[in-house]
């Protein structure tokens, strides 16, 4: 099995003495869709910055498709496409030029670069704006421009640092679709995001980083398995004045027509519905109180916070 990315004991101390990464290690397999999650300031962008040689590392090892960046930096970069968190194109250049120029840096001739640029501009909804200066794009369009730019040379590994920040819901969905297709066609993708439902729906493997340390690195399924309690919101037909007693389940009345119920993993939902039936409570609809990954994430990050403070 080929590894798209290997990070070993990566350590980063910034010029001002701030220790942003503390010997982190993780791997991303070829073909994977990998989420790197963590709260603000955890060190995600620092990690991805080092991988894409925008940030100098203090120590540790990084290999892209087996090519060590210290031994053959140019060889390592050939397979890499990067969408950084902050906009970093020349705001005065026009959209198409930005794409064609980027392709030129990979030795792609102008004619072919121009065709590829057209393809991605159409695909990512930038076609209308192709002759405009980059500064005239909306925030979401600027993000898509950075995605198109990163794909100009058809990289095998695509790194996306919060690609959907500030992108509206409809567009975000279409971006997910686009990224899924890309991944299905063989591109390995590493993504950071603060929208956990996005990570849950797209990614197969995950690492959670918190204050410069990896606190979890596993498959998405395995992680979701760890969730022991789920909380559901039930909209009920008839108004209640107090929460009904449902043996074994924690129940709270939120509003006269809304119940909140905690369900342990081993309990399942059938028993709950039987009890509701017995109590003549008619349920109109039901949903998760919050995203499952979100709950886990918060509990994991809280836990390390408590450990550190202890």
């Amino acid at each position, binding site marked *: 099995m080929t590894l798209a990315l290997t990070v070993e004991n990566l350590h980063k101390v910034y010029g001002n003495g701030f220790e942003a990464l503390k010997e982190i290690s993780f791997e991303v397999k070829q073909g994977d869709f990998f989420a790197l999650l963590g709260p603000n300031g955890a060190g995600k962008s620092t990690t991805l910055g080092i991988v*894409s040689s925008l*940030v100098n590392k203090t120590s540790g090892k990084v290999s892209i498709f087996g090519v060590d960046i210290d031994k053959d930096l140019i060889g390592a*970069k050939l397979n*890499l496409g990067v969408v950084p968190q902050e906009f*970093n*194109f020349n705001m005065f250049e026009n959209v198409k030029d930005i794409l064609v120029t*980027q392709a*030129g*840096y990979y*030795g792609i001739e102008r004619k072919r670069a121009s065709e590829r640029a057209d393809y991605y501009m159409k695909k990512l909804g930038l076609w209308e704006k192709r002759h405009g200066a980059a500064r005239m794009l909306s925030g979401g369009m600027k993000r898509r421009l950075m995605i198109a730019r990163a794909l100009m040379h058809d990289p095998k590994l695509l790194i996306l640092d919060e690609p959907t920040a500030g992108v509206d819901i409809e567009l975000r969905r279409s971006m997910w679709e686009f990224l899924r297709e890309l991944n299905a066609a063989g591109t390995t993708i590493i993504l950071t995001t603060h929208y956990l439902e996005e990570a849950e729906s797209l990614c197969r493997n995950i690492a959670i980083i918190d204050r410069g340390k990896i606190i979890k690195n596993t498959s998405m399924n395995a992680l979701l398995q760890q969730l022991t309690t789920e909380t559901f919101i039930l909209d009920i037909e008839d108004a209640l004045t107090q929460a009904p007693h449902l043996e074994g389940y924690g129940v709270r009345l939120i509003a006269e027509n809304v119940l909140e119920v905690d369900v342990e993993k081993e309990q399942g939902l059938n028993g709950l519905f039987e009890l509701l039936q017995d109590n003549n409570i008619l349920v109109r609809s039901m949903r998760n109180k919050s995203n499952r990954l979100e709950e886990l994430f918060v509990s994991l990050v809280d836990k390390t916070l408590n450990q550190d403070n202890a």
Partner: protein
Amino acid sequence: MNSHDLFIAFWTILRREIRRFTRIWAQTLLPPAITMTLYFIIFGNLIGSRIGEMGGFDYMEYIVPGLIMMSVITNSYSNVVSSFYSTKFQRSIEELLVSPVPNWIILSGFVLGGVARGLGVGLIVTLLSLFFTDLQVQHLFVTVAIVFLTAVLFALGGFINAVFANSFDDISIIPTFVLTPLTYLGGVFYSIQLLPEFWQGVSQLNPILYMVNTFRYGILGVSDINVGFAFMMILLFIGGLFSYALYLLKHGKGIRS
């Protein structure tokens, strides 16, 4: 990256650099044309006719090579310093940093962009000077070689300045406080033979003197200094600055945290 890819990468950078300064020609190409025309009129015609001869030539003839050189120096320097600094400032330098373009190609692309503007302006000024005097080039190879190397040297200087610059102010300090005085004192307007011996010696420490005089030698056939020595020195400086700029890029000075 094979040599074909490298060439495309190099040409991509150079092309972008040339497009940048031609797009904003009113800020880059027009001002030197106006300033130099004023120099020709005021120093060459009005004052020059009172001065008489300099180094055995008409004053106008004498200063034209110096003024051409002065515009080449300022323009190749300022092109790279402002272009590379704004690339850094806008962070679009990251487009190059993530790409597989080797540092020496990045450096060459920016430097040759500066050379293109320096020589472009040099050519414009030369053409303008033809309205005021006849230019007969005595040593074509020396003339072309020295103007090219000078442009390379100052483009490199501009690059290094931009690497260290942290604000737009920083990119005008060196041109104002170092380049301009050195150029004015570098024999653009006078022959150092006119100076007392002590100041002749001091002037010889000024590298710009060698370039201006070598260029003047190429055109007029006279020089205050040894031309062979000038070439050797400028090549040495270019080698030194090129290596230093590469070293700065390799360590990401000013561009990578």
